[in-house]
């Protein structure tokens, strides 16, 4: 599904953002990617999304290798990988339905199928009643649900989430996490970057990776036992939450 093999990423001015990172996420797995700010979480997600190329090593996503994928083929990778951000990145001035429909419109979905599918996705994330509301009229939690619906538009194999609860209050966070759990239960792999340790503790069956200064310092799957229970409890498990 997703495999990073000795991946390093160096930026000309910032230096190394990732150093020799290797891990493998299997189909249907739920994993947290944690670490302090600047530890390399977002860089890892960008590399998986192939928005960036590793300086060294290889990123494989659903059969596509960072070593061989061309600019022309990137869209194929992107349709297999959904992406959700902390700041939602919705199109202002459009309704929730239009935001989801936009992702379908631009990815070769037949015109007749766009609106029903967008409606279905909004129903899946619990926002059907607000489909016609403009996104700026929605709460943060609701906006994040629209963003998740959009990320699911192309039936991706994996969902990447970069601090998706970072801008949400406790209640909205719980709602979004429940939604992720439901999506994961249907077989979609999820890799969520977060620095919220409490959130990770509340999902003890999830796999946890920890980055520190660009290096992978912890993988709950390969750890022999819980490390002071700071990441997840219990630490090593696969499958759904």
């Amino acid at each position: 599904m997703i495999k990073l093999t000795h991946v390093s990423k160096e930026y000309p001015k910032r230096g190394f953002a990732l150093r020799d990172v290797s891990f493998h996420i299997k189909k249907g797995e739920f994993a947290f990617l944690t670490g302090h700010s600047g530890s390399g979480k977002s860089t890892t997600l960008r590399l998986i999304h192939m928005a960036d190329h590793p300086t060294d090593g290889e990123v494989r996503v659903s059969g596509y290798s960072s070593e061989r994928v061309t600019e022309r083929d990137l869209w194929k990778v992107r349709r297999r990988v959904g992406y959700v951000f902390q700041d939602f990145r919705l199109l202002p001035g459009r309704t929730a339905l239009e935001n989801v429909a936009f992702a379908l419109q631009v990815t070769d979905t037949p015109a007749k199928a766009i609106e029903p599918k967008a409606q279905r996705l909004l129903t899946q994330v619990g926002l059907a009643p607000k489909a016609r509301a403009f996104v700026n009229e929605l709460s943060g939690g609701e906006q994040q649900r629209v963003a998740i619906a959009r990320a699911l538009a192309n039936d991706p194999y994996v969902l990447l989430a970069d601090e998706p609860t970072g801008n949400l209050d406790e209640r909205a966070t719980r709602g979004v996490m429940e939604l992720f759990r439901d999506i994961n239960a249907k077989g979609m792999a999820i890799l969520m970057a977060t620095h919220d340790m409490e959130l990770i503790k509340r999902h003890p069956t999830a796999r946890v990776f920890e980055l520190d200064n660009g290096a992978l310092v912890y993988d709950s799957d390969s750890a022999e036992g819980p490390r002071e229970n700071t990441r997840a409890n219990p630490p090593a498990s696969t499958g759904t939450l």
Partner: protein
Amino acid sequence: MYALREAIAAFRRAPVLTGLSSAMVGLALFVVGLFGLATYNLQLTLSAIEERVEVVVYLRDDARQSEIDLLLGELGDLEEVRLVRYLSKRDALERAQRELPEFGELFLESEVNPLPQSLEVELRPGDRNPEVVERVADWARQYPFVEDALYGEEWVDRLFALRRVGLASTAVLGGAFALVAALIIGTALRIAIFARRDEIYIMRLVGAKRGFIRRPFLLEGALAGLAGGVLAWLMTYGTYRGVYAYLFEVAWVPGTWVVAGLATGAAFGAVSSALAIRRHLREV
């Protein structure tokens, strides 16, 4: 179809911005249009003067008709020559009386016609240049019954020097105006695309193909360029009407120039959009 729908929708979604882009394109092309109008009229004036470039072969009074016919035929056979007219001494006198009335009395009082018979050699449009007229004149001079062959050497040289200057300044100024127009159009469309960078970002994010992303913007650029071209055409035409009515007589540019101007506007728009969007496509 999606590309066209989106391009038109972009005009509807941000009418002020796209309107401003078109207005900037229009103003930039208006300057090019004015320059084109001036260039065209300069060209017409030079061509009108150029049409008068001809070689006059003066014949001796004792030249026989058979000799004149021979030269008439041989000059007519030259590739560069369009027409050869024979002007007898009598015809020359009549013309002089008609065209130079101030000397009319003098011609009437004189018992002897002082004007020579001649052949007026009109050249083909592409051959009215100093080299050809000189060659034809030299060629005619070799006949013994030819007194002289003249073509107004000095003014022909000046005319062509003026034409060369005209051509060079057209190329340089026209190029500079076109470049400035391209920069303005590029900036206008860059602003329009920048305003839609979020859409481009989302398209890349969810896996739209590059061509699919690019097409509506290229079309939008082309439409903005075309709208600007139409605006420039209207402004240039208005200026032409104003100059014609209140200042002096000018000619309107040929239809092909107008079509070329509109096509250039659309092409500038599409190319500027393509360049502007490249940057945004690299971002995700």
